[in-house]
């Protein structure tokens, strides 16, 4: 009597092995068309951000649909990295959303691929109002005569600090302080308060861009890298020393609390980030948080510029007029400003800027910070980043973290970064 039934199923096994091995090879993009003529027109709007932004945008969309009953807006949102993966696939499949939230890093990339809609003609037809923008922001996304986006808000890099720690350490950051002042402050905080002074700036591309600008260079030129190994090697070598000295937060711990902020979680007394992000700190952490000026090399020039989130249309949309109407509404309507607050930065148009009067401390701090750097006259124009800049930004962040974790030497890290940057510029 044999009980080994099924032992003779090697043919089946072979099949099973083969088909299992074949998994993971197939990746297919698909899409479905939308549209139609007559009756209400539907446009699709997608953005990146957290839940609270989604709620706000949804509210604005409801308002828009009420005022424009002929236009329906379908919405979709993801977190930042996922948003671009999805958008990239949709755009490649010829089915991108009609209106997207956008940033300067992506303008040339998608312009080169003919994905973005030139909003210029729509402005001429009167569907898009380009009046009333603060400090020339309406030109922010103009590349080679094409208007590829309209800013919804402006933001700037800032040093977010844990005010309680700074106070206890007896440090008052002031406009005009230098990197040497800042390093001295880090040491004082480390010695007196037993906490790292910064979360670790070595991977923050936008901060390194400012440092380069303070020295007459920039992270990107129009079509490539604006700096070389000679600049990056000393920067990362010093960074590693500061990690080892405990002036920058323990990278292993920073890694574990992601995506939360290291400063809000008490791992460091401060970190460099966009000023509008500071809204989330008081929700995430238990201290009180403020915005400090960016240190400079010469005590004057911070290299700062207005960054901006914008709304862009996509070139394949069947409803460019409705797209323009929606963007115009989102950038000018005072009610939208009251709903959005400083979620995407300080509103880009004067009408919206005046419509929202901040009452909470973080928003007030942002308004004060933006006014102070505008008054200080430090703002410079920004060059739209070359195609592939998003990949390079991610590589800078990742390789910076690897370096801090002690996995690679500064020299190898620098080499790896420029090798990946070269590939990214060629591939995009």
């Amino acid at each position, binding site marked *: 009597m044999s009980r080994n039934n099924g*032992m003779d199923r090697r043919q089946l096994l072979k099949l099973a092995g083969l088909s299992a*091995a074949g998994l993971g*090879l*197939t990746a297919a993009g698909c899409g479905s068309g939308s549209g139609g003529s007559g009756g209400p027109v539907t446009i699709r709007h997608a953005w990146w951000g957290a839940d609270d932004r989604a709620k706000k945008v949804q509210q604005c969309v409801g308002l828009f649909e009420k005022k424009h009953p002929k236009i329906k807006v379908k919405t979709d949102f993801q977190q930042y990295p996922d948003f*671009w993966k999805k958008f990239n696939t949709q755009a490649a499949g010829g089915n991108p959303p009609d209106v997207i939230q956008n940033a300067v890093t992506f303008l040339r990339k998608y312009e080169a691929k003919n994905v973005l809609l030139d909003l210029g003609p729509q402005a001429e037809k009167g569907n898009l109002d380009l009046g009333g923008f603060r400090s020339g922001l309406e030109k922010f996304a103009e590349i080679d005569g094409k208007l590829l986006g309209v800013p919804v808000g402006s933001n700037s890099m800032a040093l977010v600090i844990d005010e309680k720690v700074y106070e206890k350490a007896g440090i008052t950051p002031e406009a005009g302080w230098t990197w040497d002042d800042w390093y001295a402050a880090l040491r004082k905080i480390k010695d007196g308060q037993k906490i790292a002074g910064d979360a670790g700036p070595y991977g923050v591309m936008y901060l390194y861009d400012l440092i380069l600008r303070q020295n007459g260079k920039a992270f990107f030129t129009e079509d490539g890298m604006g700096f070389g190994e000679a600049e990056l090697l000393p920067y990362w070598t010093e960074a590693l020393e500061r990690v080892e000295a405990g002036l920058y937060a323990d990278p292993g711990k920073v890694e574990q609390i992601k995506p939360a902020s290291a400063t809000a979680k008490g791992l460091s007394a401060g970190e460099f980030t966009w000023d509008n992000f500071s809204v989330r700190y008081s929700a995430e952490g238990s201290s009180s948080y403020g915005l400090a000026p960016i240190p400079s090399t010469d005590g004057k020039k911070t290299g700062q510029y207005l960054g901006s989130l914008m709304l862009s249309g996509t070139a394949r949309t069947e409803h460019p007029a409705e797209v323009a109407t929606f963007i115009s509404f989102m950038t000018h309507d005072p009610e939208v400003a009251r709903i959005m607050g400083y979620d995407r930065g300080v509103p880009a148009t004067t009408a919206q800027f005046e419509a929202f009067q901040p009452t909470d401390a973080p928003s007030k701090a942002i308004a004060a910070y933006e006014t102070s750097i505008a008054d200080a006259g430090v703002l410079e124009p920004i060059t739209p980043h070359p195609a592939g800049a998003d990949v390079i930004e991610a590589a800078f962040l990742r390789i910076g973290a690897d370096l801090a*974790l002690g996995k*690679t030497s500064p020299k190898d890290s620098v080499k790896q970064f420029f090798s990946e940057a070269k590939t990214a510029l060629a*591939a995009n």
Partner: protein
Amino acid sequence: MTHIQISPGAVAPWDGRSVPERSGPGDGPPPNGAKGTGRGENLAGYLFMSPWIAGFLFLIAGPMVFSLYLSFTEYNLFEAPRWIGLRNFTDMFADPRWRQSVKVTSWYVLIGTPVKLAAALAVAMLLAQKRWGQSFYRAAFYAPSLIGASVSAAIVWRALFSDDAIVDRTQKVLGFEAGGWIGDPEMIIYALIALTVWQFGAPMVIFLAGLKQVPQELYEAAEMDGAGRRRKFFHITLPMISPVLFFNVLLETIHSFQIFGSAYIVSNGSCGPADATLVYTCYLYEQGFVNSRMGFASAMGWLLLVAVGLVTAVLFRSQKRWVHYEEGGR
């Protein structure tokens, strides 16, 4: 005798005539012609299969052929693929991150698979004994396999192995000040391996079925000859269940090569820190969907297929040495 019986009426849409050739003399039914397997029925059979055939052609075979072509091109999804010959492959071998991904994946497969199978076999042997409440234990040990591959389990894993979470605190009680594993490039891979080992339920069930098939009289005879537990395990149990073991080794190895979700989620989408969880598919995904290098990603995919195919072939070859089939197996 539970050998699979093949009767001609049950084989449409296959050609009934091939059946007698396959079965041994006297084993199958007489070659009595193909009753009721005419052309019309063949056609009907294929028609019923057509959704599957269409799916296979358009969703699997087509994209596979296309990805084979893409692996020799540079393709960023937007511009037409540009033929670059073998450059994706030479780039790959020169790429330190690709080598890292191979290293991480090999480590994961080489450590995770044997440990998982050992755990599965050990628990299966405990559960094979006749005891009160065994079906409850079987269900309890199988449960992680049902939820282990899910996103939520990976999120829980990330929480368990972080600083000051349960694993870290247990370590401290035992006197290790090692910190959480998630932020440690040396340790995080073991958190992933622990996650796969924890899901030993599926191979366990298969082992259990195999163990139940081992004839009790063999053990009884061995006991009479004075064999101890070790001897019985190595000389009866292991050889008797070797086909089942082979099946499990094969499936788990192939499965391990394809790890993606748990690495992606436990590392919070970074496959880090310091590329410590950069498993092969994670890097493939990053190159394809983040860096828009679909040609490179396709080349990586095909290389994975070849590698898994080779490993599978080696395993099949190795059968001769350690897998014992009854009933005319080699």
